[in-house]
């Protein structure tokens, strides 16, 4: 059978794994697709290439399709999220000198304690931080700003700068930034170079945050229903394979050997296994749901997630519905339902309402959603924060 070549853009981070696995393990071929993975030097370049039709599909930071569809900054285009590619997987780290300063003031940061960290910074007299994030429209920035806004009085002023992830550890070692919010492997790289300490995983702010999505142009999706179906099925299979615990070590090997990532296995392993070392001398700590590819309906593009993103990037109230519409739950249902994927009864949920794993109604009846709480206990529903 002749395979259809699909050009798919990505940025070399551990969480692009579903795309690599879909190609390398033949899940794409099974759907008649030859996935041509095209590495991009920056998120801006990836965005332009997708919008201009030089890429058929792409891995994107979850706020990007929403921002583009709403015409907020950069290049506007109708871009939809076909499915979520990964949930969580980012880290917040402090420069080693800053962490030492906190420790000297008897306010050593306790890993994963978001509310506590803010207090520690205040107590140690830190009132200004320069923080690196990978891109303006990123979950990294949204989580950082949510944490700052919800942590009480604004006694901590922050300069946010965009730094390409591979340069994050250089930037912190040269004292150009005091802290960073970055995706793996770049947090662990900074730790192994002893220039930073990790203090929060992204999940400490929002327990189940959509991190990357599989995106394509709205019109391309309309014009190529068969390709879209094949692509979604292949990527879903790859994501399921990645989240099977017995496959983890093999996954690290395949990703390390792949020409697409060019990272050593020991840099890929922490994110895939969820075992990260907050400090260079620490033994790895197991972080629950550090990076989720498929479990707990992770691939389902909840419209309420799109609404939350839209609100946080400053969309007008009228635009929330438009943002929801670009998270394509309809395609998820139509394309993945027939191959036995369990589908949730609803397409929106109250974000932040689940403090524990919760069974919800679904077509096959065994869907258990993971906690999705915000660190401050607030919930978000349909344009209103409570």
């Amino acid at each position, binding site marked *: 059978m002749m395979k259809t070549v699909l050009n798919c853009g990505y940025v070399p981070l551990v969480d692009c794994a579903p795309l690599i696995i879909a190609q390398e393990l033949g899940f794409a071929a099974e759907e008649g697709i030859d996935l041509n993975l095209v590495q991009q*030097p*920056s*998120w*801006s*370049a990836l965005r*332009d290439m997708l*919008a*201009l*039709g*030089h890429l058929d599909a792409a891995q994107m930071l979850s706020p990007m399709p929403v921002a583009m569809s709403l015409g907020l*900054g*950069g*290049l506007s*285009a109708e871009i939809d999220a076909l499915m979520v590619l990964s949930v969580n997987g980012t880290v917040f780290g402090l420069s080693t000198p800053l962490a030492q300063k906190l420790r000297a003031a008897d306010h050593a940061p306790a890993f994963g304690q978001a509310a506590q960290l803010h207090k520690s910074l205040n107590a140690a007299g830190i009132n200004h931080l320069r923080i690196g*994030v*990978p*891109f*303006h429209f990123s979950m990294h920035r949204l989580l950082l700003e949510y944490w700052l806004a919800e942590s009480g009085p604004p006694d901590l002023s922050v300069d*946010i*700068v*965009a*730094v*390409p992830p*591979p*340069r994050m550890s*250089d*930037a912190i070692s*040269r004292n*150009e930034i005091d802290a960073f919010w970055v995706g793996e492997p770049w947090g662990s790289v900074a730790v192994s170079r002893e220039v930073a300490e990790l203090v929060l995983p992204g999940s400490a702010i929002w327990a189940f945050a959509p991190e990357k999505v599989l995106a394509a142009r709205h019109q391309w999706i309309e014009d190529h229903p068969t390709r879209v179906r094949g692509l979604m099925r292949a990527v879903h299979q790859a994501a399921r394979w990645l989240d099977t615990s017995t496959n983890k070590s093999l996954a690290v090997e395949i990703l390390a050997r792949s020409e697409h990532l060019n990272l050593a296995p020991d840099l890929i392993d922490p994110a895939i296994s969820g075992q990260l070392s907050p400090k260079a001398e620490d033994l790895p700590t197991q972080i629950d749901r550090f990076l989720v590819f498929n479990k707990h309906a992770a691939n389902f593009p909840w419209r309420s997630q799109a609404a939350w993103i839209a609100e946080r990037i400053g969309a007008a109230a009228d635009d929330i519905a438009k943002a929801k519409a670009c998270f394509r739950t309809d395609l998820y249902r139509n394309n993945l339902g027939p191959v036995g994927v369990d589908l949730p009864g609803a397409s929106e949920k109250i974000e932040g309402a689940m403090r524990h794993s919760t069974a919800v109604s679904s077509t096959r009846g065994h869907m258990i959603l993971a906690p999705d709480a915000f660190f401050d206990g607030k919930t978000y529903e349909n344009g209103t924060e409570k």
Partner: protein
Amino acid sequence: MLRNHMREDLSILVVEDNPEKASQITQALNAAGWSDVHALGQTARLDQAIKSRQPDIVLIDLANPDRDTLEHLSQVSDTKARAVAMFVDHTDPDLTQAALTAGVSAYVVDGLQMNRIRPVIETAIARFQIMKQMQSELDAAKRALEDRKTIDRAKGIVMRRRGLSEDEAYKLMRKTAMDQGRKVIDVAQALVTAADLLS
């Protein structure tokens, strides 16, 4: 035609890691008549360089990861938007055409042919100004539409509460605004806010 609108004192920032290539570009720009050219190799200082130099245009390789830093700077409010021209190493006429059709303010140059650098930069700036103009017109239109909705709501509130006709309600709002030295939209906004609070 474009040349007539172009200033010769244009301030240009070139972002390029490779010193050889950077000096090549700087020379080409000098030869094209621009003397205020600054090449930046240590790209981590991009934000400071932009804040201190306030360039009219930034020239950067399409494949440079620092494009994301540049994008972020154009999103934060205290930095004014500026034109960005990009160059690519390989000629790709399709991409150039697609970029122009899509109306990206950046102009994609094929292969950065040094003899074409002047028209390319002039086009990028002209294009950027057109886009900026269109954006501000669009913003103004959106604002006007929002204002009209607010004024209509406020009129409705006054009509119901005071038993006035639409025309009378508007006249009352306008008089109140004039008496207080405010704009009609501000009075309308106050009415709507008050009504929302009291409902």
